[in-house]
């Protein structure tokens, strides 16, 4: 039973809203901005803090690791330095305390060498060279007496500076060694030189006294990068070291370098004063890296999980928020649309009502005219075309009735288009309606009994339409019961949200078959004067008011209609 096809049209109109696609885009953009902005605000400080943390940790860890290395290098430099200075001082003592003449004596020189070997160690040989470069005296394992050094650089340097410490070299002796030479003046510009060869293995052993990690290395190089002691990873003594010379510094230093494979390592170095030697120590940053990687990984894990969680919350929040906004907008749009639609329908309704009223008056005149003709015909028996005329008049009257039915429906429709919700006292409403039809009941001696409990809640509904519903059902009842019949009306609340009005008569009842079709339009049992619309209109109105109507009947026992209505009516649509 589609009483209101306009409703499906309304739905179609709402869903085919022309701006909807654009709006969809607007919400997507809103969501995007919301996510971006919130993420930016939430994640930027977090990421910045993590980066700063990582940097600070790295710095602290590096400092922790480098400090002992520096100290070690510093210590080793000191011990190497004092090793050389000790021997230099010993030579200076010998050259100052023992006169030149005595030193020229091979035996005396051998005595000094053996003393020094005992006291200091590392001395290999000793030689006295006069200012012309001739080695005038020599003690040691090699036969170097009489060798001339005049053309050698070190001889000139020692003449100028008074002392000389040489690079490590092989020389005639066939093992790595270095030379310390000191000068003593003889007066009048003449001088002589005391020259000692020292086994550079002593230096190496000094370096080895520190416990190196398996991945670390420590060695000496000279200023041109030639290894002065053997190294683990950079070659044997007197080979060229692959590490570039670091810049000069009076202190111990650490620099971060990369090897040929691109792997980073730390180089700690120190220039040993007044010697050509540079102490170098290399450390693979693995152990440090291990700690560092754990810390960094933890930080990165923490950051990643935080970022994921924050993003999830932001995305969920944004979707949720924009969804709510959208819902609210949609609701508002729908309501606006509905108001507009209702207004439109209401004006259509008012126009329809006006038209129906206007038509009813001329209709009544036609009706009376036709009735008049019928009256005349009924008294003029001699009129020749009486029967034919009678037929035409009846046809006019039938058509008038049809028109009347149409305006009837139009008015009903108009009324439904323009609903007016107000608070209704059901007791009062029933009394009003009964007063309205009471005359007929009275004249036909029908007992009408109406019972409404005192605590009946007021309901919100359309008064006029509700009156129409009750009137239609009551009229049905009055028609059904004979003279002296009885109609019972009762109302009661059903739960918190509904009320039920029951109208029962003691008429002949309705057969099972008719009962099934009772709310169908144009179904009628009153062959002559029923339109078949009363109950179908009633059904439509009750549905419109958000309620239900049901009927129970048994032949011979009467019929009972029940109308259930909501107390709070939000369901009424135009």
């Amino acid at each position, binding site marked *: 039973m589609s009483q209101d096809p306009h409703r499906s049209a309304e739905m179609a109109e709402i869903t085919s809203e022309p701006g909807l696609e654009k709006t969809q885009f607007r919400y997507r953009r809103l969501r995007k901005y919301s996510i971006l902005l919130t993420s930016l605000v939430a994640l930027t400080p977090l990421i910045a803090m993590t980066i700063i943390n990582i940097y600070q940790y790295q710095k602290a860890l590096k400092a922790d690791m480098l400090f002992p290395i520096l100290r070690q290098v510093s210590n080793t430099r000191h011990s190497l330095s004092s090793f050389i200075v000790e021997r230099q001082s010993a030579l200076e003592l010998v050259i100052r305390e023992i006169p030149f003449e005595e030193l020229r004596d091979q035996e005396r020189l051998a005595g000094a060498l053996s003393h020094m070997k005992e006291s200091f160690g590392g001395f290999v040989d000793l030689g006295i060279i006069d200012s012309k470069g001739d080695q005038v005296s020599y003690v040691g394992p090699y036969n170097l007496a009489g060798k001339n050094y005049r053309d050698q650089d070190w001889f000139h340097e020692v003449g100028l500076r008074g002392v000389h410490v040489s690079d490590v070299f092989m020389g005639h002796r066939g093992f790595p060694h270095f030379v310390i030479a000191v000068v003593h003046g003889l007066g009048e510009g003449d001088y002589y030189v005391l020259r000692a060869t020292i086994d550079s293995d002593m230096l190496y052993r000094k370096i080895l006294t520190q416990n190196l990690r398996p991945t670390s290395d420590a060695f000496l190089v000279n200023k041109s990068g030639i290894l002065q002691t053997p190294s683990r990873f950079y070659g044997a003594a007197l080979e060229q070291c692959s590490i570039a010379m670091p810049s000069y510094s009076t202190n111990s230093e650490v620099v971060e370098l990369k090897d040929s494979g691109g792997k980073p390592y730390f180089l700690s170095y120190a220039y040993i004063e007044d010697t050509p030697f540079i102490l170098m120590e290399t450390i693979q940053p693995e152990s440090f890296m291990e700690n560092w990687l754990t810390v960094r990984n933890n930080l990165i894990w923490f950051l990643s999980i935080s970022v994921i969680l924050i993003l999830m919350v932001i995305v969920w929040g944004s979707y949720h928020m924009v969804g709510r906004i959208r819902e609210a907008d949609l609701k508002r749009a729908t309501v606006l649309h509905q108001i507009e639609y209702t207004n439109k329908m209401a004006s259509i309704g008012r126009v329809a009502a006006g038209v129906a009223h206007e038509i009813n008056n001329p209709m*009544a005149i036609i009706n*009376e005219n036709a009735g008049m003709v019928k009256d005349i015909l009924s008294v003029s028996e001699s009129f020749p075309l009486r029967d034919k005329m009678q037929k035409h008049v009846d046809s006019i009257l039938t058509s008038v009735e049809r028109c009347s039915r149409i305006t009837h429906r139009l008015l009903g429709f108009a009324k439904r288009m323009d609903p007016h919700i107000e608070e209704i006292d059901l007791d009062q409403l029933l009394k009003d*309606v009964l007063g*309205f039809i009471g005359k007929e009941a009275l004249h036909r001696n029908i007992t009408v009994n109406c019972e409404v409990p005192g605590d009946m809640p007021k309901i919100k509904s359309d008064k006029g339409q509700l*009156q129409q519903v009750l009137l239609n059902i009551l009229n049905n009842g009055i028609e059904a019961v004979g003279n002296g019949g009885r109609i019972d009306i009762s109302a009661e609340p059903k739960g918190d949200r509904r009320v039920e009005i029951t109208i029962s008569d003691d008429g002949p009842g309705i057969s099972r078959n008719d009962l099934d079709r009772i709310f169908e339009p144009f179904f009628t049992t009153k062959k002559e004067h029923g339109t078949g619309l009363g109950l179908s209109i009633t059904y439509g109105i009750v549905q419109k008011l958000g309620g239900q109507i049901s009927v129970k009947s048994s032949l011979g026992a009467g019929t009972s209609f029940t109308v259930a209505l909501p107390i709070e009516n939000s369901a009424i649509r135009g």
Partner: protein
Amino acid sequence: MANEKVLLVDDEAEFTSLLASRLEERGLRVETASNGAEAVEKVKQGTYDAVILDLAMPGMDGIETMKSLLEKRPDLQVILLTGHASIEKGVEAVKLGAKDFLEKPADLAKLLQKIKDAKTERMLLVEKKIEEDLKDILKSRGW
């Protein structure tokens, strides 16, 4: 007392005259008025068993007319006639004192029945009133 006397009030002159003649044909005495004011005048001057009153009229509408009619004659039987204006209006009219209600275009048989009912009721009221008046007179005379 067989002939009911009715007053027909409608702004459609043709309708009233037609209905009047049809009713007269059926033995009723009918007078007509084309608006509320005229109806009030007529009711002032004569007695009617029923007033058949159109609800929708220009100027003084049916409800207003009925109010002033009932002011003059509280026992007046008013039958409202309307082009199915609205149930709400009809209910309102009945609350204000109308005795009955009929939809336009009206079924003549129904109308006649309602007029007859109205007359019966009026007679009852009149009898009651006379009875009361008599009682009052007797009381005042000391009976």
